[in-house]
């Protein structure tokens, strides 16, 4: 089945130690998104790619970076994780930039910062 895959599902890191979360998709969608979700709150968009074009949300900290080397893969890099960065990180895709598009979410990576 076509899907959005996130690895790892659970990640533990130390304060200040860089960490990379990965997302892959077999849907061949053009748009990929990274969301941060804390404590059953609404997902908060960090950034998204429309194909190779990177779009950063204005309030996303510089500590968060992303790479999309090809259509299928997208990475979230947290350069120096703080305790406040502990959260569920969700990757999502959509076919294109159409308003009717459905977003398809991966299972998420739960990040713990010690």
């Amino acid at each position, binding site marked *: 089945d076509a899907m959005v895959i996130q690895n790892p599902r659970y990640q533990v890191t130390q304060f200040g130690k860089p960490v990379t979360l990965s997302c892959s998709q077999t849907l061949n969608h053009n748009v990929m998104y990274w969301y941060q979700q804390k404590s059953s709150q609404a997902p908060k968009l960090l950034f998204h790619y429309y194909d190779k074009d990177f779009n950063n949300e204005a309030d996303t900290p510089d500590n968060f970076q992303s790479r999309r080397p090809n259509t299928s893969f997208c990475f979230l890099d947290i350069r120096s994780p703080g305790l406040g960065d502990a959260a*569920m990180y*969700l990757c999502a895709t959509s076919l294109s930039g159409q308003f*009717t598009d459905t977003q398809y979410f991966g299972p998420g990576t739960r990040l713990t910062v010690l």
Partner: protein
Amino acid sequence: AQSVAQPEDQVNVAEGNPLTVKCTYSVSGNPYLFWYVQYPNRGLQFLLKYITGDNLVKGSYGFEAEFNKSQTSFHLKKPSALVSDSALYFCAVRDVLSGGSYIPTFGRGTSLIVHP
């Protein structure tokens, strides 16, 4: 500008009873509306969406939602709740406005608890 409100943090219902999870929206143009469900430690799963046409939209797992333009609402409903429906539900909106963004705005979520 687009926004969505889910006025209830939690909804409790007995198994077998009908359930409603409320969502109201605010847009400048026309709304495209979505419902997603999230089970513990999982990503969001798409349930249904309203784009145009029939105001009553049917989706996955027996859920449906009614678009009401005059009340700017898109409430999620199910005739008979199951314990397995217990989860977090998110409403989302896109404002179909010329020059607008395709990025949706999510509500804060409503926790549905279905009691046996």
